């Protein structure tokens, strides 16, 4: 590790670009990928907050979003933005059905709910394998070109994804803080029994929360489909990332998901630039290990 690090820095000083550009590039990359992690993590943490279920099927919802974009935009020439919106709506519908049909009976029984989510993940992957086949399929990029600023290079499509994610995160936050439904959702997350006593329709709120979470994951998948390719297994890595982010920020905490997503994005981007992607993954899981052992409630969660 040490030798590799020295070699890497040596390379930096010999190279055409300097230390400050190197760090700026790491920060930009980190924030851009962090935004996508936030999109995934928001839904993941919302589901945990409302239903106390760790949703191992979250990556598959991301995969469904990307697959719908592949079929509509990549294969049938539907407008990209329309395709992403349809993917989000369709996946939200699937999410609501999953919640009503399968998850509802496991509210507050954490372990069985988690095992159920594993079953759903396996099932959805199998469906995608049967429909799409196992190969990685490329989706044509709707936006091309790069933006160069000083020594930093930013592809336009990554910038676009980051901007979209930012808009959606802000919209979600406004929804949660300023609408009746959003407030109802927060009360259910805090104490579902009291919320029910106050007249909140807990079951409706749960189904809606699951639908929103699924929709967010699908948007993330749809936005990333042209950047990476689409395959039935594509959801596994984003699920792991969302998982790491949410544990870091605190399971069930919305601000935690945002902060955690950006922190993980930056840490990963740093490790990936200096070492390699495997080291970056090891680092992020090491963070989870330390957080769960030292402060299970995460950075922003309620202390249990």
């Amino acid at each position: 590790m040490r030798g590799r690090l020295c070699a890497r820095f040596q390379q930096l000083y010999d190279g055409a670009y300097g230390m400050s550009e190197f760090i700026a590039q790491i920060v930009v990359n980190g924030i851009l990928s962090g935004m996508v992690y936030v999109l995934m993590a928001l839904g993941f943490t919302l589901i945990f907050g409302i239903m106390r279920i760790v949703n191992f099927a979250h990556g598959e919802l991301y995969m469904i979003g990307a697959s719908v974009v592949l079929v509509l935009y990549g294969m049938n020439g539907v407008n990209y933005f329309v395709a992403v919106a349809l993917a989000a709506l369709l996946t939200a519908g699937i999410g609501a059905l999953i919640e009503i049909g399968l998850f509802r009976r496991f509210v507050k029984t954490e372990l069985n709910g988690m095992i159920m989510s594993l079953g759903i993940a396996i099932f959805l992957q199998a469906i995608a394998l049967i429909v799409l086949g196992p190969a990685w399929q490329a989706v044509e990029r709707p936006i091309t070109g790069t933006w160069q600023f000083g020594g930093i290079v930013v592809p336009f499509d990554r910038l676009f994804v980051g901007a979209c994610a930012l808009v959606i995160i802000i919209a979600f936050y406004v929804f949660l803080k300023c609408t009746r439904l959003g407030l109802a959702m927060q009360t259910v997350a805090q104490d579902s029994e009291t919320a029910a006593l106050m007249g909140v329709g807990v079951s409706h709120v749960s189904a809606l929360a699951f639908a929103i979470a699924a929709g967010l994951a699908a948007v993330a998948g749809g936005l990333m489909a042209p950047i990476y390719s689409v395959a039935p297994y594509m959801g596994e890595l984003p699920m792991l990332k969302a998982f790491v982010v949410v544990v870091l920020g605190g399971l069930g905490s919305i601000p935690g998901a945002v902060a955690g997503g950006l922190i993980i994005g930056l840490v990963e981007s740093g490790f990936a630039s200096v070492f390699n992607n495997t080291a970056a993954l090891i680092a992020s899981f090491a963070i989870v290990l330390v957080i769960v052992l030292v402060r299970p409630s995460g950075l922003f969660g309620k202390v249990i």
Partner: protein
Amino acid sequence: MRARVVALAVLAVLAAVPIWVGDRYLAHIAVMVCLMGMLALSLNMMLRIGQLSLAQVVFMATGSYGSALMSMAWGLPPAASIVLAGIASGILALMLGPLLLRIRGVYFVLLTFSLAQIVNLILQDMTGVTGGNGGLFGIPRLEILGIRLARPETFYPYALALLVLSFAGAMALYRSRAGAVMQSIEQNEDLSRSLGVNVLAWRVGIFGLSGLLAGIAGASYAHFIGFISPASFTFAISVNILVINVIGGVASPLGPLIGAVLLVPLPEILRDAQQYQLLVYGLLLIGFLAFFPRGITGFLFSRSPDANQERRDT
């Protein structure tokens, strides 16, 4: 009780079939059933104390790599290296236990999940020792009493003996005073503590035992297949042994065995259609959780006591 005897008899007959038939392919499947059954039993011990561990695959991996490396680098006979690697895996579990087992519920699952991910990534990254993603080739075959267990037909009796031994051990443990303590820990931790049970020490002890079991299964796997790579020790193994437990039923040690017999041959039967194998897995898991959350053994065995209960009540 009768249902248990019938189930055991059916399992015993099934266990004898590969020996009679002597078919290489059938024996291969049978060996995998035995090894996965052991891993499922090791998870069953953890589930019994209310801790869903996704780290059993870690001990399987340490057993596998440990035994493979000891026999390859130091030239130890596999029969010795399997035992040593199994014990080492158990000791590793005992060392990790006090740290991990203070955590309960969802957080324990997250913790063990992350640990398994890290170990798999390290196996991929430490190319010098583990061969990275390329894995380790040419792991020596197991030899017992001068008989070389190179073929599945000859390996199967060994694997079956291991499984029977593990099952008998688990059965004895669950039926003993220790089993009663385990049950009390699972059902009411505070009450157990108030009765003077050192809950953490018990958990660590069970974790160590489950690590030993998983380590021996993993080590045997290495010498059976002759090749190991990080791809053999992924989250999929954790999911498989969990599905086996859910479908077989956690409450009886027969559950993991029945689950393994039903589920392990599935990939072989659906070999040409992997996607349908995944589909069946997912549907079984969802169906059992929704309709038979106590699994096959829960469904088969608990009917009679319930009926008695009803008779007494009316």
